[in-house]
């Protein structure tokens, strides 16, 4: 439990930082697809000890990202349809793999929704590594992300290297997703990228202010959610997201009732 809490709090850093840009760039569906797409990778990794769940998840996330980026270029198949099919297919592959030796090795509920007890020291270590990487990468890249998101047409000739920025963000989403899996599971990890940042969006006036706000909100939601999950003996990912959703709803309601801040709404 201690380790889960430690990992969770450390994870709130990359989740908040990357999540801010997921919300501002409307990459929620993509994040959901990456999360779900790790499922077959984890199943394989658990069944083949030489690979292990982390590498399995990382490979699956990379494969799904490459597929989506490659196929979404075709204009005939648009609107995230390929993303939708890819994520469903990934789940199916995972489900199919759940036979024989793989079935025994895989605690399905824990893989899908996270676990309080099965967090290893290595998991915590990886979370720290990604947290540091996220701080550095998004710290350096923050202004480029800002200009590219707000006004691509101006940013590109001004020297923003748009392709690198885009790929960097997609890679960050994958990396954060993979290290967050042990705590919250593949089906709901995207919720932790989107919900705290969406809540921050309501509360903050500027994009840069959202970054620390999302991290703080995420940390609180993870902390409270984990404690509640232990009390209720329910999967942590589900409890955290339910709580995060409730928080978002409350903040939105408060914003409607007391529009004191001058924020753009209509």
């Amino acid at each position: 439990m201690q380790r889960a809490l430690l990992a969770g709090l450390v994870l709130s850093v990359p989740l908040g930082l990357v999540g801010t840009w997921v919300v501002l760039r409307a990459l929620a569906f993509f994040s959901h697809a990456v999360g779900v797409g790790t499922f077959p990778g984890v199943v394989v990794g658990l069944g083949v000890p030489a690979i292990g769940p982390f590498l399995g998840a990382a490979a699956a996330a990379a494969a799904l990202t490459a597929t989506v980026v490659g196929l979404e270029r075709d204009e005939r198949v648009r609107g995230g349809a390929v993303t939708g099919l890819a994520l469903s297919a990934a789940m199916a592959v995972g489900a199919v793999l759940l036979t024989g030796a793989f079935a025994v090795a895989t605690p399905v509920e824990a893989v899908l929704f996270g676990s309080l007890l099965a967090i290893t020291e290595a998991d915590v270590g990886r979370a720290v590594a990604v947290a540091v990487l996220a701080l550095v990468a998004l710290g350096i890249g923050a202004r480029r992300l800002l200009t590219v998101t707000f006004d691509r047409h101006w940013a590109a000739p001004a020297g923003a290297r748009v392709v690198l920025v885009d790929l960097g963000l997609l890679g960050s989403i994958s990396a954060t997703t993979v290290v967050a899996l042990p705590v919250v599971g593949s089906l709901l990890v995207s919720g932790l990228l989107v919900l705290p940042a969406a809540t921050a969006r309501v509360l903050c006036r500027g994009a840069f202010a959202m970054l620390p706000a999302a991290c703080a909100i995420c940390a609180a939601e993870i902390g409270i959610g984990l404690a509640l999950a232990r009390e209720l003996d329910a999967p942590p990912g589900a409890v955290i997201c339910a709580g995060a959703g409730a928080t978002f709803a409350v903040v939105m309601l408060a914003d409607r009732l007391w529009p004191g801040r001058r924020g753009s709404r209509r």
Partner: protein
Amino acid sequence: MSAAITVDGLGVSFGARTALEDVTFAVPAGAFVGVLGPNGAGKTTLLRALLGDVAHSGRLDVERPVAYVPQLSHTQDAFPIDALGVVLMGTYPRLGWWRRPSRTDREGARALLDRVGLADRARTPFDELSGGQRQRVLLARALAQQGRVMLLDEPLSGADARSRELVLDVIAEQCRRGGTVLMTTHDLAEAARVCDRMLVLNRALVAEGSTEDIFTEDVLRRAYGGDVLVLDGRPALIDDPHHHDRSPERLPWSG
């Protein structure tokens, strides 16, 4: 005096489609050039080529950095940033990744907002501003880029009278100081009024020169095809179809 912008045999293609073909011209420093042509003529493509944003054939010579005011419609809607934040973006290319905008930069940005008449709007969220005000903020951002050459893409379309006035004022000042300004527009009357020279594009360069050189029936027909009316022996252009306003434009001297 060498030209601020030199273009020689410029060609741009997107796959099978040729957007620009063998364009050649030179613009001296201090000039205010209007780029005219119907939709799809390649006006925006020309700007992008000058910015170094598209692959091209032929030679291009322009002094960098180039300040840019893109079309307003391309900015993301409802992005959490205020007017000052947008102007500060103009300083980013100069700063490099390790430095943050200094107090001098911030004060400079405020001064630029004041220059475009929006000093009291520095903290206003960008999407709460009117179309004309937003255009002015983008202009201030371009000024913050501190380029000798400035390119503007349709800066006057949809802007209110005060915004247009301010934009043209800033442009005039730039040119007085030796800067060079290129502006695309489909508003011929306005271009005729304010620009020193004009380029007329329709994939290729149809004509180049002063107002008198351009506003002949021959040139207008080659550029705009059938949308030219002849009234009292003088050519007049029917306004761009996408503007829903089908009244023929009278040329400045046609009385």
